[in-house]
């Protein structure tokens, strides 16, 4: 006996095996990201407003990435529709665009990560707080590392505003004012942290959720890339099954897009 309904839908349920599989998997993914979003809400509600950074992420870049993912979720459907219309070449084109979108998204995301790793907040002993860059753009510095390196002071290029003032810290038209580093003696620094997960609950949430999402993008890109490349040979042996695989991969891809549609406003705009 062979396993039935691998390609053809079962008459009474109306779907083939893999489709119910992916929907169940997505249900569990909803619970996974749902738990993380719930944790975000709980932690944010309990946080002091002044300790919750905002305006530190680059909104145009995030918006660009949103558009990239939305385009990819259109092309992933077009690829499936092409197969339904038995146009293999067109399928390959759309599939390739989807993979390129995924890779673009990941490349932009890695650029955003790098920017944050060299962007710092300094808590001074007099209670003032500054955000900005350390001369030389070092990454991942901490007060402990500076002390080990026997540094006495840092050269700090401060942003025009601190986020607790309720204004966007990085204002572009004031960029020319950036090149005036001030010296801050280490003795005056209580805490120093780049915008890494350990910086604050906000960045912990930001990095955890976007990294988990990026892993999903990567996984989706690998599957879609496989169906574009070696996996597409199935077209000549079992075209219907390949079409189903593309559909199932597409369902997963839509979910990945959907998560980002929630992540973007929650992390960049709110």
């Amino acid at each position, binding site marked *: *006996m062979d*396993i039935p*309904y691998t390609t053809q839908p079962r008459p009474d349920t109306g779907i083939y095996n893999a489709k*119910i*599989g992916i929907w169940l998997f997505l249900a569990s*993914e909803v619970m996974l990201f749902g738990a993380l979003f719930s944790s975000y809400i*709980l932690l944010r509600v309990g946080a002091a407003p002044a300790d919750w950074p905002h305006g530190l992420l680059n909104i145009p870049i995030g918006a660009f990435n949103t558009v990239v993912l939305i385009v990819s979720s259109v092309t992933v459907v077009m690829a499936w529709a092409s197969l339904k219309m038995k146009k293999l070449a067109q399928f390959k084109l759309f599939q390739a665009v989807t993979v390129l979108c995924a890779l673009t998204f990941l490349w932009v995301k890695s650029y955003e990560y790098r920017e944050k790793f060299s962007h710092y907040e300094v808590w001074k002993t007099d209670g003032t707080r500054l955000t900005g860059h350390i001369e030389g753009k070092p990454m991942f510095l901490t007060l402990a590392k500076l002390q080990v390196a026997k540094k006495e002071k840092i050269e700090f290029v401060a942003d025009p505003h601190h986020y607790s003032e309720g204004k966007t810290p990085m204002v572009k038209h004031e960029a020319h004012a950036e090149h005036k580093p001030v010296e801050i003696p280490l003795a005056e620094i209580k805490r120093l942290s780049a915008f*890494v997960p350990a910086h604050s609950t906000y960045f912990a949430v930001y990095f*955890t959720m976007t990294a988990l999402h990026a892993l999903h993008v990567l996984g989706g890109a690998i599957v879609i890339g496989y169906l574009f490349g070696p996996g597409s040979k199935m077209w000549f042996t079992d075209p219907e099954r390949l079409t189903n695989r593309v559909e199932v991969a597409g369902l997963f891809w839509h979910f990945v897009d959907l998560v980002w549609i929630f992540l973007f406003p929650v992390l960049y705009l709110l």
Partner: protein
Amino acid sequence: MQATTLTPPHVEAHPHPAHHAHHAHQEDAGFWRTYIFSTDHKIIGIQYGLTALCFMLFGFCLMLMMRWQIAHPGEPIPLVGPLLEKLLGNPAAKGVMSPDLYNSFGAMHGTIMVFLAVVPLAFGAFGNYVVPLQIGAPDMAFPRVNMASYQCYLLGGIIMLVSFFIPGGAAQAGWTSYSPLATTIPTDGQTFWLIGMVLLITSSLLGAVNFIATIVQLRAPGMTWMRLPFFVWAQFVTGFILLLAFPPLEAAGIMQLMDRVAGTSFFLPTGLAVGGHLANVSGGGSPLLWQHLFWFLGHPEVYVLILPAMGIVCEVIANNTRKPIWGYKSLVYSALFLGTLSFIVWAHHMYLTGMGTKISAFFQTTTMIISIPSVIILTCFFISLWGGSIRFNTPMLFALAFLPMFGIGGLTGLPLGFAAADLHLHDTYYVIGHFHYVVAPGTIFAMFAGVYYWFPKLTGRHMNEFWGRVHFWCSFIFMNIVFMPMFAQGMAGMLRRMSDGGLNYSEARGPDVAGTLSSPIIGLNKFILWGGVGLAISQVPFIINLFRSIWKGEKIASDNPWEATTLEWQTPTPPPHGNFAHAPKVFRGPYEYSVPGASKDFTPQNALEAARNS
């Protein structure tokens, strides 16, 4: 007229199943693909079963050593003490279990028993082997996913085992791993625990997707929902619980992993002091959040442990009372209700966290409501016994013992469900007694019933009946010797997780202090220790019987030695690759025993019509 089945009748056992074409094909795949990286649900089921039984024995051994430490604090452990010192070094210096080692054994006992022993045995082993056979399917819907599920489980288990040997030892913060304790204990054991858990959760996710898809999609023609054996229903609900309840723990695990390796503060509050110094963390996290996420899995997990057990008990009882199970539909709806409601009772584990009386009131209410379907299920089983001509074989003895044992476990849970009573009982041995009655003489007895019941299908041979009964009666007596005294200890106020077994709070240490633990209560520790040793010895006949019977057991007289109605017995023995020689067709419900007028007292689900006396 004779009973007519669409599958050819297999009256003879199949001692040489390799003759079967499909099976021969499977054997061509070579040793590795056939036994290690198999995609056949039956092999995967056996892999799960053997691995889980090994973990169960290991988890039990951890506990035996801990019971020695509880009964004889600070004394070297006899027999294994020197070995422990050789393996683990300083934490077991001179063969004495240090408090740190006690903590890590305790945490790992819980983790191993729940996530590596009972769930894989109940869901992975029995579910994998039996569900496709019972619904008349050739295999699981996604055989390769099924293989990946087992491999993830094995890898997770190995990571858990390896963590015993790293510097600092395994995780020490209890199986619940509450933050900030779990985050701040200076051992990498917790990191290993978290990575192991992520793998185990992945494994159960893959399994759950597979089970649900299989049950929905691969039911044989005529196998409608209300003709499914209750065991399949139980696994179906279990699949949904695993699918939806585990991801929040995975999310929590990822966050705790971030707390440990990336220095975040998801679960670390502002102003956290560790060892008298302010911790160098950003703060702003919530320890309560971990508990919510943990118990959001933790409570549905209880039903993951108990539902498959109920399924097995149902099959065994129906088969050995030779009459239809009473209230099949009530059983099904109760299981569905149980599965659904289990998602909104989790905070009854957290009455003492100060989360507020209104929330407590809500969770008290749902907790009381959820006891109703459990009682319905148990009642159906009890009524099923009424008027049956019961066959008291080993599987039936275990299934019968499950009923009162689970009953004790369930009823002692009621006082814990009330916030007022829980104030006194929380975190005492009463809780330990309660949930061990549910899981140990409850679920594990049902697992034993399943092993004895389905063993002939796996091997074509019976397990030895006499030694099976010895195993049952000894286990039954010693289980109660171990767990019954814990209720008394708990009500006397003895807290769990104390490596000295309550000695510090005993009468002996503070003769004039009010409320100390009396000598008889402390003395029960020794009683329990020897009960535990007896329980260990009781398992020896089982282990020998299990392996000896594979080769030396009495051969079964037919493919259906228990004269059962469900489809797994209407296949060759052991079932070949692809399970059924011909696609089965189902004509009736699962428990058509003693149909009036039929020539035999059982009518298989795929029999064309009930045989009549003529």
